[in-house]
């Protein structure tokens, strides 16, 4: 939560560890993509191309199979959506994987990384809704005819604002709790002789589990972003 080596500029703080780790993740994602794209060929795919095609094809297949974003979705919008979601998925996945390299922690263990990602999804959702519905976008939030529809706008607003908040807190909470648990385990089983004769098993086991949780959370972040965009761009008949 609080960054240990934070530099303060007035009321703004700069967390160098998170910054450096985010740059590492960016370099890894861009490097993997460039290597895979540079060695891509139409015949038998190489190892890198295979991995990249698996990940990208997974995201693409998920968008294609999703009932939220139907086949009548504008193709140009859809390509942009695919690029955004694939980037988001790869970034969060690699960021969560950084936990297994000892000197580093995942950059997603702080709200400073996850909240911007969630706000990005929030902006993307409503911008794609505006592009789809134009001036009628405001009316899609009114689900009940008459005065009640306007009265319920407060609840709809709370619902819309809670979406990016829960999105950010979910990713942050999962990764942060995983790292907190490792800290607690180190306190319970300290580095003595019995640590090296089998005491490390809980630590390694929990690390394996948090790697699994990291993959699932990256997937969930992508799926929920897709669901929110699908809701905003769905064909709804206004209630009046």
């Amino acid at each position, binding site marked *: 939560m609080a960054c240990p080596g934070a530099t303060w500029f007035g009321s703004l703080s700069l967390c160098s560890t998170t910054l450096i780790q985010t740059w590492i993740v960016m370099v890894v994602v861009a490097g993997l993509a460039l290597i895979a794209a540079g060695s891509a060929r139409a015949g038998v795919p190489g190892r890198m191309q295979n991995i990249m095609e698996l990940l990208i094809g997974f995201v693409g297949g998920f968008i294609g199979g999703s009932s939220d974003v139907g086949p009548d979705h504008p193709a140009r919008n859809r390509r942009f959506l695919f690029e955004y979601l694939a980037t988001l998925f790869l970034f969060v996945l690699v960021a969560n994987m950084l936990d297994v390299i000892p000197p580093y922690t995942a950059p997603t263990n702080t709200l400073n990384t996850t909240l911007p990602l969630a706000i990005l999804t929030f902006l993307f959702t409503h911008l794609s809704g505006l592009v789809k519905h134009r001036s009628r976008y405001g009316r899609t939030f009114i689900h009940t005819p008459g005065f009640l529809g306007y009265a319920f706008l407060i609840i709809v607003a709370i619902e819309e604002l809670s979406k990016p908040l829960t999105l950010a807190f979910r990713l942050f*909470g999962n990764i942060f709790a995983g790292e907190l648990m490792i800290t607690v385990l180190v306190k319970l089983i300290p580095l003595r002789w019995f640590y090296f004769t089998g005491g490390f098993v809980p630590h390694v086991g929990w690390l394996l589990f948090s790697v699994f949780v990291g993959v699932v959370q990256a997937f969930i972040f992508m799926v929920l972003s897709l669901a929110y965009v699908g809701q905003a761009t769905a064909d709804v008949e206004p209630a009046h």
Partner: protein
Amino acid sequence: MTTAAAHILASGIGLGLAALGAGIGDGLVTSRFVEGIARQPEAQGRLMTNTFISVGLIEALPLIVLVLVGFVFTK
């Protein structure tokens, strides 16, 4: 009771209740998942994806409680 003791007690009770609720929820989802596989083994792939999504959503709630407890407790 001091304020610090009250904080610890409240965090413990809150976290325990959150874990209890999430445990019940996870159990309900997973039991239906196993039932679904037993009934239709060929649907396992689709069921597993949806189960992971649901379990991930449910698991997030006690973790959000943990984060909130941490915020309150460190104040």
